[in-house]
């Protein structure tokens, strides 16, 4: 059944990248990248999921009861931060691109080539 989660993860990665490839607006492109990035959260958490297990927080459940994988959750926390940092930088670049090129369409941002 986790197969459903993997299908969704692959779909999010590819559709997010598709959006970025065909994007005509840098802000749209950046948001599409966050969609692709969220595929990695779904993948990691699905890899660590166990049927019927609880969250790895032993505040209300006794130590030793079955829990889902805590490590992938720690990794995903870091991954979420990576997304936020990349978005911040890319948006800052977008603002400057608008000032220098007068457009936020990747078609118009073509100073470098050849």
């Amino acid at each position, binding site marked *: 059944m986790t197969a459903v*989660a993997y299908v969704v993860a692959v779909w999010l990665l590819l559709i997010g990248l598709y*959006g970025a490839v065909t994007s005509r607006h840098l802000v749209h492109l950046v948001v599409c990248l966050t969609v692709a990035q969220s595929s990695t959260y779904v993948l990691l958490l699905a890899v660590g999921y166990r049927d019927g297990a609880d969250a790895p927080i032993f505040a209300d459940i006794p130590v030793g009861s079955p829990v889902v994988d805590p490590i992938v959750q720690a990794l995903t926390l870091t991954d979420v931060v990576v997304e936020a940092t990349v978005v911040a930088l890319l948006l800052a670049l977008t603002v400057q691109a608008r000032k220098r090129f007068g457009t936020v369409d990747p078609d118009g941002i073509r100073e470098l080539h050849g």
Partner: protein
Amino acid sequence: MTALQVVALALVAAGGTAVVFTREPLAQAIVTGVFGLFLAILFMLFQAPDVALSQIVVGTVAVPAMVLLTLAKLRREDERE
């Protein structure tokens, strides 16, 4: 895996697709907030409350806020011309 999780996964897949095909950035900022919420629900169902909380603060607050502020800045540039 429960039926609820499958529903949440379907919502996430649909939400992600909607974000990509909402080509107008202002509308997209709203849609992405909803998508972030779907993801947070999914993470709760995956028994990952810490990640869900992070996802809420980043996916539904910080990223849309940054996007909206950027769009406001871009509009300011448009107005200047």
